[in-house]
Structures are given as structure tokens and as C-alpha cells.
């Protein structure tokens, strides 16, 4: 099994397509002790140094994101301008550059990463909230597209016949649509419906972004699950369950689903970094989030300042890079743990 290449311009495919009947069936028992494939995979994962390092980094960033409000409160920094804080005239010089902190003045604990030119936002606070947004969006999108993908894949694979043909056609239809262009046109449409209400705009954009990611993200998992189910349903245990009249729902969720854990976990672990990258990418293009802090949006604003105020650009770039690379490598380790054939 090898990994299919991922189209860079489409922000990466959202999951892997192992050949049918590959991952769950090819598990070998480790010694004489009976272990479930998941346990074997976890043992392998614990021995993987890359996985440990990346896992730690991801965990750290998750903690930073989750506790962003607490951390900013402790450091007394604020992600947006509020009454009672120093006004823009005190923070910025006449040319829009910060009057305290980098790039022209020494480091200050008031704003550890400096403040943004023009807007006066605290960079560290925006960064922490950006990580929070990014993780929120990607987790929501991953959960939703996994639910949709698995359900549709199960139905298509199990039903066969014309429902399968219709569902497969729908899957192909969505797959034939370039993700980036789809996002390009869908996001602003959803946003424009809510633009009247500024308070709701941030949340509407967030939900719109999750929606766009899900609409273009569920298909590969659905196809993967469908393929697995097609081969699994011919196996004896499913056939006998059918013969003794086990209800369909029970067969789907109690007999088939446990056999699909490995490919689903692998697909999900590679879906997450793709979504993080996609969220930042869309916001970088200016069609993702504008109402709430987002790393991509900061990069978009900051890349004009790469020379005059490089810290402003590098902080979000490095955080996105570290987060995505760590998640990707972790996902890759997880895939290796579940299917050790992949990298030999």
C-alpha cells in the first residue's frame, strides 16, 4: 500500500484510500496473547518516537488553544480592543506601526509578541485565539464529515443495487468538484446571508467554514467505507447474521462498524491536519474567517509586513506550520501503527 499523492492546490485530499480489504483483515496476532488490532496498534504507536514528539506538540497546542481565554487573562492581554484599555492613539504611531514593543522598541511583557500594526491587536492573544479557532473548526469538521462519510458509506456498501448506484453517483459528483473553487463560492454566499447582523457574522462564518469543509470532505471516507463494506458483507459472519435475521441496524453498527475502526481512525487522523491547513488557507485567501481571530487571516494581513515587522508574520506562519506538520506526521505514524505494511 502506498499513499496516493495529494493535490496541493486542492488543499489535500481529506483521507486515504487503502485498497479494499486491507487494513482490518491483514492484522497478524502478536505472539500468543490475544490482542485486538487496536491494542496492537497502540503498542506500536507508543514505541514510535516521531509519534511521541508530534503527539506532545499537538497536545501542547491543544492546551494552549483550549485555555486561550485563561492564558490571555493571566497575562493581561486582550484579543480585541475594549473600553478601558489603552486607545489606538497610545498604542500606534502616526504611521500605524506599534509605539511599544517590536519592531522598533524593546520587548515588553505587556505585549510579549508585540501588537499588530494599524489595528493594535495583541499578537499573542490573537495567536492563541487563532489556534483555538483553528482547532475548533477542524475538529467540528472532522467529526461531522466522519459521521456523514461513514453513514453514507455503510448505506451504499450494504444496500448495493440502485441505492448504491445513486449514492456512488452523488459521491462522484461531489468529488468532481474542485474543493477550492467550491469553497470560494460557497463561503461568501453563506456569509452574505448573515452580513446584516455583525454580532452573528463571526459565528455564521465559522459555521459556514465548517459547512464548506464538510461538504467537500466527506466523500473520500464514504468511498473508503463503502469499499470495505462491499468486501466485508460477503464474509461468513455477516452472511450468518443475515441468515438468522439480525436486524439491519444491528448488523451495520454492531457487526460491520467494529471492523471498520482501523481505516476510519487512520482516515480521521489524516483528515484533521488537512482541515487545519484548509481553514488557515481559506482565511489566508480572505474567504474564510474575518470576524474572529484566525491564523490564516493574520498571515494574509501580515505578509505585507515581512520586511518591516517580520515577527508579526513569522509567529502565525510558524504556528500553522508546526501544528499541521505535527498532526500530519502523527497521522502518518497512526497509519503505520495500524498497517505496518505502508512504509516498507
Amino acid at each position: 500500500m502506498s499513499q496516493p499523492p495529494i493535490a496541493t492546490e486542492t488543499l489535500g485530499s481529506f483521507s486515504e484510500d487503502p485498497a479494499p480489504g486491507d487494513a482490518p483483515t491483514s492484522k497478524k496476532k502478536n505472539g500468543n496473547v490475544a490482542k485486538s488490532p487496536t491494542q496492537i496498534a497502540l503498542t506500536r504507536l507508543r514505541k514510535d518516537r516521531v509519534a511521541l514528539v508530534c503527539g506532545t506538540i499537538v497536545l501542547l497546542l491543544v492546551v494552549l488553544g483550549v485555555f486561550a481565554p485563561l492564558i490571555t487573562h493571566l497575562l493581561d492581554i486582550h484579543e480585541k480592543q475594549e473600553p478601558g484599555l489603552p486607545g489606538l492613539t497610545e498604542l500606534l504611531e502616526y504611521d500605524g506601526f506599534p509605539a511599544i514593543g517590536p519592531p522598533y522598541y524593546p520587548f515588553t511583557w505587556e505585549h510579549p509578541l508585540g501588537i499588530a500594526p494599524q489595528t493594535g491587536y495583541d499578537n499573542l492573544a490573537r495567536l492563541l485565539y487563532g489556534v483555538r479557532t483553528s482547532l475548533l473548526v477542524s475538529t467540528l469538521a472532522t467529526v461531522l464529515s466522519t459521521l456523514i462519510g461513514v453513514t453514507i458509506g455503510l448505506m451504499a456498501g450494504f444496500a448495493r443495487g440502485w441505492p448504491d448506484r445513486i449514492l456512488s453517483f452523488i459521491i462522484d459528483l461531489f468529488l468532481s468538484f474542485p474543493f477550492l473553487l467550491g469553497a470560494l463560492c460557497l463561503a461568501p454566499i453563506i456569509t452574505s446571508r448573515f452580513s446584516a447582523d455583525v454580532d452573528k457574522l463571526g459565528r455564521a462564518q465559522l459555521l459556514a467554514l465548517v459547512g464548506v469543509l464538510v461538504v467537500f470532505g466527506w466523500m473520500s471516507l464514504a468511498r473508503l467505507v463503502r469499499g470495505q463494506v462491499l468486501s466485508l458483507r460477503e464474509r461468513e459472519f455477516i452472511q450468518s447474521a443475515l441468515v438468522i435475521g439480525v436486524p439491519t441496524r444491528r448488523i451495520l453498527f454492531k457487526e460491520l462498524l467494529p471492523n471498520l475502526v482501523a481505516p476510519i481512525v487512520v482516515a480521521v487522523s489524516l483528515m484533521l491536519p488537512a482541515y487545519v491547513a484548509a481553514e488557515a488557507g481559506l482565511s489566508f485567501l480572505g474567504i474564510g474567517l474575518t470576524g474572529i481571530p484566525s491564523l490564516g487571516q493574520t498571515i494574509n494581513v501580515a505578509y505585507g509586513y515581512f520586511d518591516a515587522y517580520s515577527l508579526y508574520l513569522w509567529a502565525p506562519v510558524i504556528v500553522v506550520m508546526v501544528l499541521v506538520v505535527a498532526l500530519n506526521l502523527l497521522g502518518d505514524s497512526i497509519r503505520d501503527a495500524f498497517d505496518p505494511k505502508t512504509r516498507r
Partner: protein
Amino acid sequence: MLGYIVRRLLAALLVVIITSMAVFALFYKAIPNPAGPVCAAQGRCTADRLALIEESMGLNEPITTQYGKFVKGVFVGRDVPFGSSTYECDAPCFGISYGTRQPVTDQLVKAYPATLTLALGGATIYLTFGVTLGVLAARARGTIWDRGLVGFSLVISSIPYYLFALLAWIFLTLRTNIFPDTEYQPITQGVLPWIGAMLLPWLVLGIAQSTQYARFSRGEMLETLGEDYIRSASAKGVPRNKVIFKHALRAAIVPVVTIFGLDFAALLAGTVFTEKIFGIDGVGLLALDSVIETPMDLPVINATVMLAAAMVVLANLVVDILYGYLDPRVRIG
């Protein structure tokens, strides 16, 4: 064979029609009050004027009639009433841009060479570079070269593409001037400026994508090298290089070509990130600009999205038909 092609063509046509309907409905129904920004852009927007503009844009008609007019325009051309004036729009007509008041087709034709150049150059680099590296890695399987390449390509392909491109742009063009900071030059202005302007985008696109092709073709190659016929060839004394490049590569390249077809179609649909970062006026940037500017340039987005979907469908079709020629084991019919 012919029957298969006809059947697939019909299915592809169906997909294109459904997509165009969905896209059209999405753009002209989902956006509340599409005439509003157009009206506001022309100065003070009174209720009368708004009604007039809506009337002239045909927004009062049922969506099916609007779609019918649009399709008619694509095939025979039509006159597009817009505001107080009427614009002539020859076939294939995708409407008149709200922003520039030019036929969308003209804008697409103007923007397309840049995207095509970018896609062709980038694809050439990543296909040759990636497959060569993959085959060499498979040949040196298990050595330090192989492991180095796999690890390196894993890291490179983990980096989000737009950050890779952004860093290359900042460090190689803005900071050090290794590559010239010029816009896209048509090839008619001379071959050298054309290459000079596109070299960095080509390299960035090529290298970012080639790591994934290297890993993919390496995997396919390893799988093929495990086949019986390869062992027979080696056993009867065929030189190793000949076995790899003649016997094995032929079989291993088939899945690579499949993936390549789809990737290439996605590139042709618009290389948005590359075009934005390197400032190339291609289809992707056209689409992006038409979304970001206010009023949103509906006809332009509509056309680019439909074009993109058609590209991908067409590429799917070509790849499936090519499959039969590339892999003699596949029977289609």
C-alpha cells in the same frame, strides 16, 4: 469500446449539466438581493432603481427561465440587458461581468494562458521529477537514500502548500532576488522573459507536488517489483536497470497516470494559491477577485466554477479511456 466511450460521455454530460444547474441556482437564488450591490455601485440606490435593475437583470423571472436564457447564451449568444444599457455577448456567452462590463468569456480567454502555462510547467516538473525520484528510491530500497527521500518527502508534503509557496516567494524573490519579481509575460513577448517570470512558480508547484508523486510511484514500483514476472526477468539474466525501467516501470506508471490526470484537471481549474502569492493573473485569481470584491461578480464566479467542474469531468473521462490503452489487463466495454 465505442459503446463505452459514448456511455461515459453521456454520463459526463449529465454531471456537467447537473453541476451547472446547481451552481446557477446557488448563485442566483442563494444570495439575497444580488441586484442590490450593483445598484449601490451606480450611485444612490432608490427603490425604483433597484426594481428597474432587477427587472433588467431578469431577476423577476423564474429561475428556470433565467437558466434557459443562460444556456441559450452559451450556445448562440444573446444580448444582456444591464442597468440602463444592453451589452452584446457572442456565443459562448457566460454573461457580462458586473465589475468590468466585459463579456465573461473575454476575461476567461485573457486569463487562461497564464493558468495553462503554470499548470503545464508545474505538472511537467512534478511528474518527471517525482516519478524519477520514486523509481530511484524503489531501486535503492532500504538504503539510507531511500529512507532519506521518504522522510524528506513526508515532511515537505506535510507543510501546507501555501506556506511553502509564501516562504519561497519571500526568501527567493523579495529577500534575495534570486528569481526576478516580474508578472506573468505572454510567450509572444519572448521566451526568456516568459520562462524567467514563471520559473519560481513552476519550481514551487513542481517540488511541492513531486514529493507526493515520489512516494506514490515508489510504492507502486515496490509492489510491481514483487511480481513474479519481474523475478522471471531477473532470473533469466536481464540487467537490473532494464528490468526496472523497462519491465517494471511500464506497469507501475499506470496508477500514477490516473492520479496525474485528476491533479492536472484541478490545476487547470485554477491554481488559486500560486496565482495569489506570485501575482499571476490567471483564472484562479480571477475567481478569487470576483468573490472578494464588492459587489460580488456573480457571472465571473459562475463561469469559472462551471468551467472547473467541466475540466475535472473531462479529465476523469480521458483517464478512464486511457486506462484501457495503458494497462492491457483492463478491459473496458
